[in-house]
C-alpha cells in the first residue's frame, strides 16, 4: 500500500464519479445538481491526469484543460438557465421543471 | 557548532531558493520570516497611511500613542484583539467564522512565490505567476462567504459588489500579466516562463525592465495592471464594496475585533502582494536601478550603500524630530522613545553597511523600496480621488481596460514576433 499506483487514482476518481452520479440522481436543488456534475467532470479529469502520468504524455493534461473549459461553459449556461427558471417559477427544485408533464 | 555554521554557510552560498532546493528547514525559516515581515509591514503601513493621509489633509494624524503616534498601530491591534468577538445570531456561524481565515490565508499564501531576491523566496514555482493570481483570486471566496454569512443587506451587497469587481478586473489584470509573460519568451530558446524568479531573471537578461519594453506597450500593460490591482484590492477610488456613504462598511460590516482585524490584515497584505506582482513583472523585481548601464565594482559599491544610507536618513529624521520635540517634562518619555527609535534605525543602517550583510540584503531592499512606492501610491489615490460609481467601475473594467489589454497583448505578440523574425532570424 505504500506505493501509490495509478489504480489508486482511478479508484478515487471512480468514487468521486459515483458521488457525483448520486448527487445528480437524487438531489432536488438545481444548484447542487450542477455542482454534482462538476464533481463528475473532476473525476474524469483525475483519470485523465492519472493516465497522462502513467503514459508519460501530456495529452491527458491537455484534455483535462479542455474539460475544465467545458465545465466553465456548462456552469455559465446552466446557471443562466437556473436564473431564468428561478425568475419565472420562484423555485430551484429540479422536479418542478416539469412543464412537459402536465 | 561548527556544523551549524557550515550549514548556514552552505545555504548562503546556494543559488537556489529553499523550496526549489528541497530544504524544508530553510523553507520553514523563510516562511516565518515572510510572515513576521509581512505583519510588521502591515503595521507600518497602517501608521504610514494614517500619517500620510493626515498630512495630505492638513491634519496631524495620530500623535498621542508614542512619539508621533508610532505606537498607534500596536495600540489599535491590542484594542482589536481585546474587543468582543461578535457573531450575529442570524449569521451562518461556520462560514462567518471561516471567511476571514480564508481571506487571510489567500493573502498570505501568495507570498510563497514572491521573489524578494534571486534566492530570497520560499520557493520558486514553475507556475509562479499563475499560482499567485489563482490563490489571490481565492480571497473573493472569503469575501463572498463573509458577506453572505453575515445575513444582512449591506454586507451582502458589499460582497456581491466586491466579488463582481474582483472577478471583472481579474480579466484585464490577467491580460496585462500575459503580455508581460510574453516578453519573457524573447530569448534564444523562444520559451518564456511563469516562474517569478524566471521573470525577473528574464528582465535581467534582456537588460530592460518590462515597463520600458516595447515602449509604450510595456507601460500600457503596466498601467492596466496598476489600475486593475487597485480595483482588485478594493481600495479607493474603487472602494465601492466598503463605500461608507453607501454601504456602511461593505462585506465586513458585521465583523468586529479580531475577525475584523484579519480582514484588515488581509487587505493590506493583498495590497503588498499585488504590488509585488507589479514590481516583479514590470519593475525588475529585486534588481537595482540601471544594473546594466551603471555596472562595475564602483557602482556596485555605491548601490550597496543605499540600504544603509536610507536607514541612516530615517534615523536622521528621527533625531531631527527628537530635537524639535517640546521641552516639557510631559514629553520626556516620547522624546526618549523617538530618540531610541532613531538609534535603532541608525544601528540597522550601520549594520547594513557591512559588505556581507548588504550584499545579501540589498535585493530585498530594492524590492521593498519599489513595493513601498506602490504603497504610497495607494495612499495618494485615497487622499485624492472621489469614488467611482459601480456602473462606471464596470464600464472601466470591461470597456476600457479589457480592450486595452487585448490590444496590448496582440501588439506585444506581433512586435515580439516581428523582432524575432526580423532582427534575430
Amino acid at each position, binding site marked *: 500500500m505504500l506505493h501509490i499506483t495509478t489504480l489508486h487514482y482511478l479508484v478515487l476518481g471512480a468514487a468521486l464519479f459515483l458521488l457525483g452520479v448520486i448527487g445528480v*440522481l437524487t438531489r432536488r436543488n438545481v444548484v447542487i445538481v450542477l455542482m454534482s456534475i462538476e464533481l463528475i467532470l473532476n473525476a474524469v479529469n483525475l483519470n485523465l491526469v492519472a493516465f497522462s502520468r502513467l503514459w508519460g504524455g501530456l495529452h491527458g493534461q491537455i484534455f483535462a484543460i479542455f474539460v475544465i473549459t467545458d465545465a466553465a461553459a456548462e456552469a455559465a449556461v446552466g446557471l443562466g438557465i437556473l436564473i431564468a427558471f428561478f425568475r419565472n417559477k420562484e423555485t430551484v427544485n*429540479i*422536479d418542478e*421543471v*416539469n412543464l*412537459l*408533464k402536465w | 557548532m561548527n556544523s551549524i555554521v557550515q550549514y548556514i554557510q552552505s545555504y548562503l552560498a546556494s543559488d537556489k531558493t529553499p523550496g526549489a532546493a528541497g530544504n524544508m528547514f530553510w523553507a520553514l525559516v523563510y516562511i516565518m520570516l515572510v510572515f513576521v515581515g509581512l505583519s510588521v509591514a502591515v503595521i507600518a503601513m497602517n501608521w504610514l497611511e494614517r500619517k500620510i493621509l493626515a498630512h495630505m489633509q492638513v491634519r496631524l494624524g495620530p500623535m498621542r500613542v508614542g512619539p508621533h503616534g508610532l505606537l498607534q498601530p500596536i495600540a489599535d491591534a491590542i484594542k482589536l484583539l481585546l474587543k468582543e468577538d461578535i457573531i450575529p445570531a442570524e449569521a451562518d456561524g461556520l462560514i462567518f467564522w471561516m471567511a476571514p481565515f480564508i481571506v487571510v490565508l489567500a493573502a498570505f499564501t501568495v507570498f510563497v512565490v514572491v521573489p524578494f531576491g534571486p534566492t530570497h523566496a520560499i520557493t520558486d514555482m514553475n507556475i509562479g505567476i499563475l499560482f499567485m493570481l489563482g490563490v489571490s483570486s481565492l480571497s473573493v471566496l472569503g469575501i463572498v462567504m463573509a458577506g453572505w454569512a453575515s445575513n444582512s443587506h449591506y454586507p451582502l451587497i458589499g460582497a456581491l459588489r466586491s466579488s463582481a469587481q474582483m472577478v471583472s478586473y481579474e480579466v484585464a489584470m490577467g491580460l496585462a500579466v500575459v503580455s508581460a509573460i510574453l516578453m519573457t519568451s524573447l530569448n534564444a530558446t523562444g520559451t518564456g516562463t511563469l516562474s517569478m524568479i524566471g521573470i525577473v531573471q528574464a528582465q535581467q537578461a534582456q537588460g530592460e525592465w518590462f515597463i520600458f519594453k516595447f515602449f509604450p506597450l510595456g507601460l500600457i500593460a503596466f498601467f492596466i495592471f496598476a489600475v486593475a490591482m487597485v480595483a482588485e484590492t478594493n481600495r479607493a477610488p474603487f472602494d465601492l464594496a466598503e463605500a461608507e456613504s453607501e454601504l456602511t462598511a461593505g462585506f465586513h460590516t458585521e465583523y468586529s475585533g479580531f475577525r475584523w482585524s484579519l480582514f484588515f490584515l488581509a487587505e493590506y497584505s493583498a495590497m503588498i502582494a499585488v504590488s509585488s506582482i507589479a514590481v516583479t513583472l514590470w519593475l525588475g523585481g529585486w534588481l537595482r536601478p540601471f544594473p546594466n548601464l551603471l555596472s562595475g565594482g564602483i557602482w556596485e559599491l555605491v548601490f550597496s550603500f543605499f540600504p544603509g544610507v536610507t536607514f541612516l536618513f530615517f534615523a536622521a529624521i528621527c533625531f531631527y524630530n527628537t530635537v524639535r520635540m517640546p521641552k516639557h517634562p510631559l514629553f520626556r518619555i516620547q522624546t526618549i522613545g523617538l530618540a531610541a527609535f532613531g538609534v535603532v534605525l541608525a544601528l540597522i543602517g550601520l549594520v547594513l553597511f557591512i559588505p556581507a550583510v548588504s550584499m545579501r540584503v540589498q535585493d530585498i531592499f530594492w524590492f521593498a523600496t519599489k513595493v513601498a512606492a506602490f504603497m504610497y501610491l495607494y495612499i495618494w489615490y485615497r487622499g485624492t480621488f472621489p469614488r467611482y460609481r459601480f456602473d462606471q467601475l464596470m464600464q472601466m473594467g470591461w470597456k476600457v481596460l479589457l480592450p486595452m489589454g487585448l490590444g496590448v497583448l496582440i501588439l506585444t505578440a506581433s512586435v515580439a514576433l516581428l523582432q524575432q523574425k526580423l532582427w534575430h532570424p
Partner: protein
Amino acid sequence: MFLTHIWLIPLLPAVGAAVMFFFGRRLQKATVSAVCVGSIVLAFILACGAVWQYSAWSSTSDNFHKPYQTILCTWLGSDTGHLNYRTQDGSPAPLQADVGFLLDPLSSIWLLFVTGVGMLIHIYSTGYMAHEGGYYRFFGYLNLFMFSMLTLILANNYVLLFVGWEGVGLCSYLLIGFYFHRKSASDAAAKAFIVNRIGDAGFLLGMFFIAWYFGSLRFIEVTHIAHSGRFSIGDPIITAATLLLFVGACGKSAQLPLYIWLPDAMEGPTPVSALIHAATMVTAGVYMVARSNALFVLAPTSMKTVAIVGALTAIFAASIGLVQNDIKRVLAYSTVSQLGYMFLALGVGAFAAGVFHVFTHAFFKALLFLGAGSVIHSMSGEQDMRNMGDLGHRIPITHRTMFIATLAIAGIFPFAGFFSKDAILWETWSREGGAYRFLWYVGYATALMTAFYMFRLMYLTFHGRPRMSHEAEHHIHESPMSMTVPLIVLALCAVGTGWLGWPHSLGGSDRFTKFLEPVFAGEARVLQEEGRTSQLVAGVEEQHNSSTEWLLMALSLAAAGLGWGMAWRSYRHADKGYTEPIAAAVPPVYDVLLHKYYVDEGYDYVFTGRRKLGNVRLGVLGLGTASAWFDTHVVDGAVNAAGWITRLTGTISSWWDKWIIDGIGVNGPATLARILSYPARLFEWGLVQWYALVMTAGLVGFVFYYVYR
C-alpha cells in the same frame, strides 16, 4: 305658605345638584358656591318657616297634634290598581307610593337640624375645599345628598323614604370615593355601598312584610292600623318585620355587625364626614326606627334586640376609639358609639330621649368633625394625632370650639350631651328587669370611655409637645372665616341645644319631649297597656325618684370627670414616642383594640373570602370558586361528553363514507386505472433526473456487458 310648598325644601338642593351636573364644569368657583350654598340656605329658611307654620297649624283645635301631610302625585302604582296584591287577610290592596310629604314633630326636628347643620357645613366646605380639585363635583354631590336626605325625612311613606334612603347611600358612596384616584378611598366607598346593601335588603323585606300585613305603606295609615289594636303585642309577623327594618337601620346607622363601613368612610373629605357620617345620614336608621315606633312597640323582642345591639355597639366602638390614632377615626368610632346610645334609647322605649340625643349629637359631632377638619387643614393634611400636639394656641378658635364640643360629648353639665345622654341612661336604669340594669352598666362604662378618648383626642391634638415635622409646623394657620364661623355657630348650639330638654328633676320642663309627644303618645299607651311602668314619657308622669336621678347624674358626671382626669394624666405632656396607658398596662388588649377586634379580618375570612381559612375559601369568593369548579367539571363535562359522543358517531360515519363508499366504490376503478397506466408513463415522466437515471441504468448495462461478456 311654607307648609303648602314644603316640596320646595328638597327641590332646592336638587336644582343645585342638577345645575352642577349639567353646567358645573364650566362654572367659576364663586358661582358654584353661590348656587349650592344659596340653595341650602334657602332650604333652611323654608324649613324654619315650615316648622313655624306647622307648630301654629297643629296647635289649632282642628288639627291638634296631627301630622301635616301633602300628596303631590302617585308615582308607583295607581288607584286603578294594576299593581294590586292581596294582603294577609286576603283583601286586595294597591301597592301605592306617593310623592307625598309628611311633617310632624319628628320630621320637624330632623328637618331643622339637617338643613341647619347642612347649611353650616356647606359654608364651611367653601373654605375647606377651596384648594381642591372637583369643587363643583363636591358641591353637586352635597346638594344631591341634601335632596336625598330631605326626601327621606319628609317622605310620607316607606317607599319614598326608601328612595331617599338609597339616595343618601349613593351620595355617601360618591362622596367617600370623592378622591377616587386613591385606591383606599374607592375601596372604602365600595365597602360602604356593599355593606349598606345588606341592610337595604333587610329594609326592603321589612317593607314588604308591612305592605302585606297592613295593606299600606303610608306612615299615617300604618300607625293608625297599628294603634287600632287589631294586633296583639308580640305578633310574630310584626316582630319579623321590625327586626328586618332594624337590619336596615343597622346598615345605615352603622350598628353591630354592619358598622364596619363607617370608620373607612373617613376617606372622604372631612365636611362629608361631618355632614353625612356623623350628623345626618347615619341617623337615618334612628329616624326610621323612631318613625316605625308604632310597630316596634308591638314587638318587644325587637325592642330588646334594638336595645342590646345598641348597647353593645356603644361600648364596642368606644373601646376601639380608645386607642385609635387617626383623629377622624376616633371621631368615627365615637359616632358609632353614640349611635349605639341612640338605639339603646329606642330599644328601651325612650324614643324621645333617643331623638333628643340625635339632635344634640348632630351639633356637637358635626362641630367635632369640622374642628378636626380645621385641624387637618392647618396641618396640611396630616391626620395622625401622634404627629400633632400643642396646637391649642396656634389655632385658638378651633381649639376652643372643639373643647366645647368635647365637653358636650363627654356629658359635662350643662353642655348639650349631658342632658341627652343622662336622659338615655336614666331611662335605661328605670326600665325594670336585671337585663336593663346591665345595659345601664354598659352605657355607663361607655360614658367613661367616651370622656377618656375625647379628652385623649383633645390633649394629643392641642396640648402636649409639638410632634409634627418642622415643615408642617411652619404651615400651621388658623382656618379662614368661612370655616371658623360655622364652628362658632355650632359651638353655641352644642352648648345650648341641650337646654331644650332640661329635665324635670333639675327644675326644667323638658320641652323637647313635650314637642315630640304627639308622635310617641300612642306608644306610651301601648307600653302602659303592657303593664309596664311608663317612665319613658317622663313629662307625663312623675313617678320616678328624683334622688335616684340625681345620684345617676352625679355618677355620670363623675365618670366624665374620671375619664377627663385619666386623659389629662396620660396625655398632658405627650411628646414624641409617648406611651399609651392601655398599651403599657395590658398590651394584648391594646393590640386587639388597635386592630378593631380583628373584625375586618374575620369578615374577610368568613364573608368576602379574601382570606383563606387553611386551604378553604369561604364567603363570596369561595362560593364563586366552588361554582366555577362545578361549572367547569360537572356542567362542561356533561356538555363535552355529549359533544364527544356526537363526534364519535360522526367519525365512524365518515370513516365508512371515505373508505368503503368512496374508497372501494368510487376511487377503486380510478386507482386501478392509474396503477395499470404506470408502466406506460415511465418513458415520459417529465422529470429530468429520471432520464439521467435511465441513462445510468443504460451505463450499468453497458459496462456489465463489457466486463462480463
